[in-house]
């Protein structure tokens, strides 16, 4: 039984009106290093239910980092970050998502995650989102379900942003300083 360390299972970007802007899934590494794909629908429901926690904690929370939103079971935990503009970044961590590459890393897996461990990931996501907004051809109103009429994709299409999110999700491990 190899030692396992936490890895990111899913990254969700949700807009001000609780509309999903982007969802990225990262497969778990099963025994014998096979990749197990994630169930998109299940994770969409998970992200949806996490929105209630944002609303419940909103009045009292003053900082942006919501930290641990909810620990679903022994394996899955959700962490959240709210930007000042109302955009929510949610990271779902799978506690046994990856096989530990070295024995030192395995020890981290045993200890569990600390609150600040996901900060680099949230910072990288926020930077990617800011870069996306600086693209003049990205119109945030186009992704707002209340303003958009007709059938248009409501999710973010920009390849650069999606690539950044995927890179962040794959590169993260507990204890990483910058992504």
């Amino acid at each position: 039984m190899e030692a396992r360390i936490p890895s990111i299972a899913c990254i969700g970007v949700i807009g001000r009106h609780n509309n999903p802007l982007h969802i990225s899934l990262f497969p778990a590494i099963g025994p014998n290093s096979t990749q197990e794909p994630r169930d998109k629908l299940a994770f969409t429901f998970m992200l949806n239910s996490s929105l209630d926690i944002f609303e419940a904690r909103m009045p009292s929370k003053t900082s942006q980092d919501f930290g641990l939103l909810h620990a679903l079971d022994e394996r899955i935990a959700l962490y959240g970050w709210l930007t000042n503009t109302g955009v929510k970044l949610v990271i779902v961590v799978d506690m046994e998502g990856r096989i530990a590459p070295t024995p030192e890393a395995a020890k981290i897996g045993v200890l569990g995650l600390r609150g600040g461990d996901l900060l680099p990931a949230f910072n990288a996501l926020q930077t990617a989102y800011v870069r996306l907004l600086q693209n003049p051809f990205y119109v945030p109103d186009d992704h707002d379900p209340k303003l958009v009429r007709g059938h248009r994709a409501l999710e973010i299409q920009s390849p650069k942003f999606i690539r950044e999110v995927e890179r962040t999700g794959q590169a993260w491990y507990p204890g990483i300083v910058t992504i």
Partner: protein
Amino acid sequence: MASSKAARIGEDVWKSRTEKINTEIVTLTYGTIVSSLCRDLLLPNTTSSTDYAAVNAELDRMGYNIGLRLVEDFLAKSNTGACQNLRETAEVISKTGFKIFLNITPIVSGWSSDGKSFGLVFEENPLADFVELPDDGRSQEELWYSNILCGVLRGALEMVQMQVDVRFVSDVLRGNDTTEMRVTLLKYIEDEMPPDDE
């Protein structure tokens, strides 16, 4: 050496005699201009297909108007005399002109065999920071995002009696390796007398 003198003048003026502005304001403003044009200039009989050729032409026209006025400011700030030949002109444009206004120095390269045409290779383009061309399949082939710069050069050089053709030949936003602009001298404009009335 002509090129190092141009570089020195450019550096001096940039450091001492220009007002600076935040680069993000410039990038965002220019981006708004281009995306507004893309939304407004549509192909006839369609509701949302941008006419990229018209956008390029409009950016060139806007640049032309800017260039006519900008060249006076440039000559006043840099105090360079008349250039003797096209090579000197190219050096002054790249080392002094672009340096003063955008703080970049494109590299002059690709001289044609008759010496009437050269290329300017841009290592960095502050107008196009963080830009991704829209994903409608045609913009990558048809839109030259920084086309306003072509108009600026055309207008500026026309005010110093040179008629040039300036166009982009490659752009990193389109996926090419470099951003390169090709400047071709068509003719020196002689002052002409207005046609006689008789």
